[in-house]
């Protein structure tokens, strides 16, 4: 069986810059695959090669076993939103979509449908020049969805979206994948992506750094840690020491090194310690990503550095 997306020995050189270096991976249906790596790792270039926009120097990037350019009906097969994918400022949202719908023989009713889906129904007849970055992202997502594709490729889709937008996108992608469809979504923010993806393909300096399920990646985590926020810090430290789990106070948190929530939870419950928040492994995930990608900078041009807040409770 051919994988819906397959990259084999893919290499791209821009003059002296080796943007993608002998990269191979496949993406499976029914799962959300995160395509991760710091800025400049080669994510966008790889996605553009998959979509026939950039010609590989070597190797192949195939959709359903064929190059994108050979797909009989690309819009109904792949929906893609790329970084620097543009909308003409003078064109209304509806007309932006009509241009694509016309090429692909898609009815006008579908335009209203996708505009409604991404929450732009009210802005349908406004010129896109007045749109915020987030609204343009939504419009481009609507454009990608026009042909009701079975494969969705999104390049840094969280850029410009507000927290509600990001949460909405996460649910949308999960739902899309749950229908047995394919989702490949790139991000330079691991913390953000870790809440959405099932599988990861991690890129560093154009090369594959790691590939597998997010879980298996977390298992490999070099340093496991549980953070507990409690009004009873002193007592928790005692209790944990007694239970053979060395812990340290860090600000208003207690950090338990080399431990899991499954191990720490029962100890606290037995001692009836009030817990306000407990998170695990957040640090190790960041550390691991950092190690895998060889300590490259994670500065995002728009957001804070990657070492942001830990994910909410109950999430690994």
């Amino acid at each position, binding site marked *: 069986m051919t994988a819906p997306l397959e990259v084999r020995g893919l290499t791209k050189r821009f003059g002296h810059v080796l943007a993608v270096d002998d990269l191979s991976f496949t993406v499976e249906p029914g799962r959300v695959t995160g395509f991760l790596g710091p800025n400049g790792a080669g994510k966008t270039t790889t996605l553009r090669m998959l979509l026939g926009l950039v010609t590989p120097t070597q190797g192949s990037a195939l959709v359903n076993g064929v190059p994108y350019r050979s797909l009989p009906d690309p819009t109904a097969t792949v929906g893609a939103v790329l970084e620097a*994918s543009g909308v003409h400022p003078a*064109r209304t949202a509806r007309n932006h979509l009509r241009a694509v719908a016309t090429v692909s023989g898609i009815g006008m009713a579908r335009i209203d449908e996708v505009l409604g889906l991404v929450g732009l129904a009210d802005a349908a007849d406004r010129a896109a020049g007045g749109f915020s970055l987030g609204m343009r992202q939504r419009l481009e997502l609507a454009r990608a969805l026009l042909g009701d594709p079975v494969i969705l490729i999104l390049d840094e889709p969280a850029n410009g979206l507000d927290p509600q937008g990001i949460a909405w996108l996460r649910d949308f992608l999960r739902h899309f994948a749950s229908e047995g469809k394919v989702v490949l979504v790139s991000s330079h923010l691991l913390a953000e992506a870790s809440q959405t993806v099932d599988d990861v393909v991690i890129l560093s300096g154009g090369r594959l750094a790691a590939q597998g399920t997010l879980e298996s990646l977390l298992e490999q985590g070099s340093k496991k840690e549980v953070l507990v926020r409690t009004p009873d810090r002193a007592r928790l430290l005692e209790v944990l020491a007694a239970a053979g789990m060395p812990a340290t106070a860090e600000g208003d948190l207690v950090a338990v090194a080399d431990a899991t929530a499954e191990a720490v939870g029962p100890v606290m419950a037995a001692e009836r310690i009030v817990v306000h928040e407990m998170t695990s492994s957040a640090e190790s995930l960041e550390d691991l990503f950092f190690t895998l990608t060889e300590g490259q900078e994670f500065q995002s041009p728009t957001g804070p550095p990657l070492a942001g807040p830990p994910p909410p409770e109950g999430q690994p």
Partner: protein
Amino acid sequence: MTRLIRSELLKIRTVWSTWVLAGVVVLTTSGFGLLIAYAPRRRALRDLLVPSGSPRWFDGVFRPMGIAQTLALVVGVLIVTGEYRHKTVTPTLLAEPRRGRVTAAKLVVAATAGLTLGVITAVSGLGLGYLLVATGHGTAGIMLTEYRLVLPGDLGAAVLFALYGVGLGALLKSQVPALVSGLTFTIVVEPIVTGVLPTVGEYMPGQAAMALLGSAARSGGFGGGGSLQLLPWWGGVLVLLAYGVVLSVAGSLTTLRSDVT
């Protein structure tokens, strides 16, 4: 292919630059129409425009199709380079990854736009002229009486200039360089070359367009001096077509392999 052409038509109808260009055509040609009607009676104005006081000066001034052709070139360039400038080339090529077909559709649409600009010019410029003459506000120059003879050639030239614009755009991709080189060539380089080397000049876009006017141009009634060295009308068509098609094919060939990043 029909769908692709319809999509490209939709795209140029939905940006303001197209309508600005159409507006420019209407304003300038009506402006010239008014000049024709009134200038001969206003000695000072006539002397200002044509110091030599040539009796047939207004025939030369009133060649509105020159404007149509220049703006057709601009439309052709914008149809291609606008996609790169606004990065809409990505959605365009995602929907139709076969780039040669996209360029072909753009050529068809540019031709349509060129023809439309030509028709608007004829209607607004000549229509106003006729109106003024009919209401006794002006004199009918050679322009108004003989223009019907050269109209097909001028419309054809507008169409071909639009194709030439698409070719330039496809080759250069960047809007400002494509516009500047296209306009500089027609407005500055070509007249110089034509003046110095008329045999080379014949093959330049503007002179080729002039050839389309046929005997009317050769007689010197249009565009000044009777000493013009021009190709036969079909030669003009071929030369202009070659500019459009050769540049488009060259542009498409480089585009076919070039990276859209």
